[in-house]
């Protein structure tokens, strides 16, 4: 069960990363203007869009299995965020997906999307994309594990809204959902940006108005991060009760109880207070910052354990 990751993946190139950052910052504007830099949501295989018919899936994955894991990246990123440092230069099993393929017999699928769009819109796209994958998949699907980093977790949570379950058969196959550094309770940085924009625009000066306007250019996706959930009509989507949920969080400090770690969390997201099921089980990785959570050996060991354990 080996999948080589040795070929250069264009997702790691500077232009591709730049386009993903641009989409995070102003992706809603790009889409509204019909700009060709706007990213349409798709599964990517070695950086290229993956067609979801049986023949294309068999060609891309010669050793398809009936266990799927779907990885959804976070804000301003693309699927290259999952790559372990150094793996892009040619090591095998370079990310959580390829390692789960090696260790657990999963077939990994990587989503790329426009992180500047409202989270609810991305969630609806993901739900539709998973339905297309399930329809075109050449084997009966036994289970699906969903893994989302940061905003990707919010998109997954929105896509798994039980309100859609009646029309989407794939949802019954979701065994577990792993949220990595996901701000279910909101991201402080976006709240700060929101407050700063309001304060600057309250001043009558031309310069403060201009800075406020520039700050306010940030995308709908960014603004949604402040709310901390995929905004549906009733607020946060309920947890999909047929799946188990895990929230893997990092802290800047080695001691998670250190005041810096408690206030700043992993630099962008704070560790939430643990709650009872169906709320996710919270697992903390001290000393692992927000981006590193997407490609950390200890986090992977935990994911592997979760996937093997239930």
């Amino acid at each position, binding site marked *: 069960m080996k999948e080589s990751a040795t070929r250069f993946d264009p997702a790691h190139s500077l*232009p591709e990363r730049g*386009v993903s950052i*641009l989409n995070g910052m102003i992706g809603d504007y*790009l889409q509204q*203007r019909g*700009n*060709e*830099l*706007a990213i349409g949501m798709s599964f990517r295989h070695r950086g290229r869009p993956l067609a979801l018919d049986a023949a294309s899936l068999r060609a891309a994955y010669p050793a398809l299995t009936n266990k799927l894991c779907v990885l959804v990246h976070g804000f301003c990123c693309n699927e290259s965020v999952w790559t372990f440092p150094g793996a892009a230069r040619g090591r095998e099993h370079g990310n959580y997906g390829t390692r789960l393929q090696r260790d657990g017999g999963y077939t990994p699928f990587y989503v790329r999307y426009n992180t500047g769009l409202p989270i609810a819109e991305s969630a609806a796209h993901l739900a539709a994309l998973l339905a297309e994958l399930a329809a075109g998949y050449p084997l009966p699907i036994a289970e699906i594990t969903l893994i989302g980093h940061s905003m990707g977790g919010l998109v997954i949570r929105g896509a798994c809204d039980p309100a859609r379950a009646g029309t989407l058969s794939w949802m019954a196959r979701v065994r577990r959902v792993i949220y990595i550094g996901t701000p279910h309770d909101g991201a402080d940085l976006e709240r700060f940006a929101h407050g700063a924009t309001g304060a600057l625009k309250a001043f009558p000066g*031309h310069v403060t108005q*201009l800075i406020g*306007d520039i700050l306010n250019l940030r995308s709908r996706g960014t603004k949604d991060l402040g709310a901390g959930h995929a905004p549906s009509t009733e607020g946060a989507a309920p947890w999909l009760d047929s799946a188990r949920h895990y929230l893997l969080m990092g802290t800047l400090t080695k001691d998670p109880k250190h005041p810096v770690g408690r206030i700043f969390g992993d630099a962008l997201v704070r560790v939430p207070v643990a709650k009872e099921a169906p709320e996710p089980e919270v697992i903390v990785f001290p000393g692992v910052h927000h981006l590193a959570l997407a490609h950390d050996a200890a986090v992977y060991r935990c994911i592997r354990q979760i996937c093997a354990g239930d």
Partner: protein
Amino acid sequence: MERETIRQLRGLNDLVADAVDAGVTRTERIHRSIARYPYAVLARIGPVAAPVRAVEFVETTITGTVYGSVRLAARVGGGVVSQFLELLDARAR
């Protein structure tokens, strides 16, 4: 050149054109609102009011032409780049 790269360059060209247009328009608006103050003050002084209005007219006409020229140059430049990219795309097909 790959078609994907050409597509991205076309998007970047459009984005730069949008940014220049919006940036120049915004700068022009701020420039005008700041420049209006001294003219408004001087125009209240009876003997100099008429020449001040004339100077203001000349100044706003010149600056308006300059800002308009920058917008026009950006559009023409963007159009030329766009045509060039279309040519590259046709070759890559």
